[in-house]
């Protein structure tokens, strides 16, 4: 029997039972929509993390005090290291390393920031000038902390957007004196907007020279040393080199941890890929349930049309004619359902975030669309083959007698 005719016959049969066909399709539609939607949320999260991390500067190696064994883990939050990391450590590795471009000592703390009668607690980052470039930050007006400021322990401060706005409003802040802790600092620069990166608000901070920060917090322990590698291909060599240099300086003890941005990235990627896979799998289950719905309806349909099958066989339909006819019906249900599901899933992935009160990054990917399409087709074949085979194997005489 020619394939056009088979298609026509199958479609007519489906259209003859519009409500039933639509309800059956609905199962597949929901399944595919869920797959597309959940995968696009997972994929969106993955891409978000990726851009955020690259937005924090690439080719970065971060040295933190204290030893954490797991490679590629998050930075340890405890600074309770046995041996501190010092400003001199940072200078030392920068001077002696052949792979590093920069090494920026960072002291992190919270202090009270006051201007006139306004005051608030704020994150203070003590740093050297290169920090700006490593973290891909921009100055909006004035200037950043300079090397001279660092060397002379000058009390200058650069304000993040939020800090500036909350303390000064529309007033010009440059050149004004603010109180940080007990000391007075002169505002030399205002940062451009950076926004929240991985939960850290780069606008709600102030920057001061690392030496001044040491004095402010009365410490010579660094929070971290941020280093950048000249050539990203030498990342592993740079890690080994820093280790060697620092172990020597720290009386042969490895009491620090080196984390690379790409480690964090790949860990996050792995976690999110697994998460996306799990989500897709869960959604896939509903697609399978949709498939069972198709099978159920096809079995009913075969039973209802037993006599039709008998008649077709009596006038010469072969096994495969009947098989294909019913298989096309189930595949049509699943593929049309799949396509509708893809459209709804992709559409809502794009539209839904606009209506949510929080930020939800979504990304419709080609692979999830293709996967959903072929999976739904496969569901149609898998769950259609049994009813279709059953139909094709019916005995013509018994079918003709069936009431």
């Amino acid at each position: 029997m020619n394939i056009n005719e088979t298609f026509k016959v199958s479609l007519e049969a489906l259209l003859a039972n519009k409500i039933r066909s639509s309800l059956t399709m609905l199962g597949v539609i929901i399944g595919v929509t869920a797959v597309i939607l959940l995968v696009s949320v997972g994929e969106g999260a993955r891409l978000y993390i990726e851009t955020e991390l690259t937005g924090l500067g690439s080719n970065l190696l971060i040295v933190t005090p204290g030893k954490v064994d797991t490679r590629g883990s998050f930075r340890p939050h405890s600074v309770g290291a046995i041996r501190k990391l010092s400003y001199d450590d940072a200078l030392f590795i920068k001077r002696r390393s052949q792979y590093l471009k920069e090494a920026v000592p960072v002291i992190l703390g919270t202090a009270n920031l006051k201007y006139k009668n306004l005051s608030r607690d704020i994150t203070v980052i003590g740093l050297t000038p290169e920090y700006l470039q490593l973290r891909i930050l921009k100055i909006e007006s004035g200037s950043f902390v300079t090397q001279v400021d660092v060397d002379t322990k000058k009390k200058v401060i650069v304000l993040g957007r939020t800090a500036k706005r909350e303390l000064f409003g529309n007033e010009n802040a440059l050149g004004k004196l603010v109180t940080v802790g007990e000391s007075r600092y002169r505002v030399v620069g205002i940062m451009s907007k950076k926004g929240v990166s991985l939960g850290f608000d780069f606008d709600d901070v102030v920057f001061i020279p690392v030496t001044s920060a040491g004095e402010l917090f009365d410490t010579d322990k660094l929070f971290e040393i941020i280093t950048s590698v000249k050539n990203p291909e030498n990342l592993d060599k740079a890690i080994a080199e820093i280790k060697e240099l620092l172990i020597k300086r720290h009386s042969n003890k490895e009491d620090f941890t080196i984390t690379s941005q790409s480690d964090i990235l790949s860990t996050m990627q792995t976690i999110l890929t697994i998460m996306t896979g799990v989500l897709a799998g869960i959604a896939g289950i509903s697609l399978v349930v949709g498939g069972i719905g198709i099978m159920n309806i096809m079995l009913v349909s075969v039973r209802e049309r037993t006599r039709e099958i008998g008649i077709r066989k009596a006038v010469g339909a072969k096994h495969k004619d009947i098989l294909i006819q019913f298989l096309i019906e189930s595949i049509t249900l699943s593929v049309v359902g799949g396509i509708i599901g893809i459209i709804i899933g992709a559409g809502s992935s794009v539209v839904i975030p606009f209506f949510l009160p929080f930020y939800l990054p979504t990304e419709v990917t080609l692979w999830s669309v293709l996967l959903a399409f072929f999976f739904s087709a496969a569901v149609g074949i898998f769950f259609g083959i049994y009813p279709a085979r059953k139909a094709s194997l019916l005995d013509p005489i018994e079918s003709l007698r069936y009431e």
Partner: protein
Amino acid sequence: MIVLKDIKKRYQMGDQSIDALRGASLVIKEGEFISIMGPSGSGKSTLMNIIGCLDRPTSGSYKFDNKEVSQLNDDELASIRNEKIGFIFQSFNLLPRFTAIKNVELPLIYSRVSSNEWHKTALDAMKSVGLENRLNHKPSELSGGQQQRVAIARALVNNPSIILADEPTGNLDSKSGEQIMKILQGLNEDKGVTIILVTHEPNIAQFSKRIIHIKDGAVIKDEKVTNNRK
């Protein structure tokens, strides 16, 4: 040419078995017009199904045009049914969702006839049963006699050499029944189609040229009809 030799058909139902045919032998030549008569349950339909290649005998030999068909597989039987045999049933067996002309096209879609000839071929068949003005009626919109004529059109659309009719007039009033018989008679006489029909009514059997009587699964009498009805 049909040659049945010692055909037996046994139905197994659990541990009980029913012998529907117990050694039926029969020769039917091309162009014959035969009635099969016999009491209910004597095996007439069973015999028709075997002749029509819808079923296989349990044992015995069945030669159709010198070809042994009793052991062919389902698809080979399907081809023979499609190309050589037309069926007419007591209960019409039309597809209710399809129009008359679509029903008549049905054997063509499983044949080698190319799709652009289907409509014309089916139309010719509808004309030959006088229903060219009922092409787009569904079976439910036709009278019993008209439905059976659609069934005849479907049976002859593929130019079969044999038409098998199992009580074709059983559900019809006598006038429609006669109309059907005249059509079958015309096919037999004008086109030389072999016609085998099962009937309980002697006056219907009188349209044929030969009557075969069956009892308990075997042929008990084979008579020629002299001066048959026209």
